[in-house]
């Protein structure tokens, strides 16, 4: 998780400085990272709030962007559900894209040691995210234009690092290509549900291919 804490530097700085440059106070900006703790939702909401968008639209957009977490919750449910509330609540609070990408071990979350490990990773990411937001707040008030530097590329580089090594079979390769192509096409068309639609379609294709392969293996 440590490399992820470093990789999120540009993303946190982008979030902090973008908010400041859109007229947020330092406290509001920091509160957003402390409470919402969701980079992509925060970035989009900052622009919407600055544009005087109605509250309901802001909340609906936040919901759409965050709805991918439903998939994460479903995927780790059987690993976490037997743990008491005092473990499940903090785990769900730090269930980010990055932590989820590290949740694939068969025993993840299932022993006390692995729970402590997951929570340490999750909360160190939380602390890092808030520190980089703070640095973004300072930088955003000192320097005029940080938001056009392309700091958002950091998230692409990080996710490439998380996804590419995991492509070990045809089903995953097909999933990744479908997700990328569909998300690009749908988003460029301005379709609001681009992320969920692309992800679900790609997952379905991956699932169908992996089922077909299992069946072929059984016949042979």
């Amino acid at each position: 998780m440590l490399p992820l804490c470093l990789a999120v530097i540009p993303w946190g700085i982008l979030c902090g400085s973008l908010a400041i440059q859109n007229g947020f106070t330092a406290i509001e900006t920091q509160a957003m990272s402390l409470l919402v703790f969701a980079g992509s939702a925060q970035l989009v909401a900052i622009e919407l709030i600055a544009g005087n968008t109605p509250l309901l639209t802001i909340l609906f957009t936040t919901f759409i962007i965050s709805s991918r977490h439903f998939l994460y919750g479903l995927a780790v449910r059987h690993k976490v559900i037997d743990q008491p509330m005092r473990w499940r609540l903090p785990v769900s609070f730090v269930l980010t894209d990055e932590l989820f990408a590290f949740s694939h071990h068969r025993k993840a979350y299932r022993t006390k040691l692995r729970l402590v490990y997951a929570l340490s990773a999750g909360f160190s990411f939380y602390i890092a995210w808030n520190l980089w937001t703070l640095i973004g707040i300072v930088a955003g008030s000192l320097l005029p234009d940080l938001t056009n530097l392309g700091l958002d590329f950091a998230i692409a580089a990080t996710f490439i690092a998380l996804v590419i090594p995991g492509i070990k079979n045809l089903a995953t390769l097909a999933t990744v290509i479908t997700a990328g192509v569909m998300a690009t096409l749908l988003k460029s068309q301005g379709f609001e549900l681009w992320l969920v639609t692309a992800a679900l379609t790609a997952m379905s294709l991956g699932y169908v291919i992996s089922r077909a392969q299992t069946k072929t293996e059984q016949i042979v």
Partner: protein
Amino acid sequence: MMTTILLMACITFFTRYLFLHRALPFKVGPKMQQFLSFSAPAVLTAIWVPIVFVTDDGINLDWQNPYLSAAVAAIIVAYKTHNIYYTTLVGMGLFLILN
């Protein structure tokens, strides 16, 4: 403003917590589990690919696009090394030079 932030926090937390709530009466079966095993590559890729290609003016397929060349470099490094440090460092480094 603080109200908006608090409501947003409730929404993101709700989406993260809902399926970890025990009172929801269902079990995720093996087929569903297999389907969900594709969620990380699908969602993460659906997030990063548009960052590379989608601009305010549409899809940018130009090789001069620094996002594209840096992403290709990052993919090669990730494939060869399986290392998050090297991948993000090379990706960001090349991107900053080109940009």
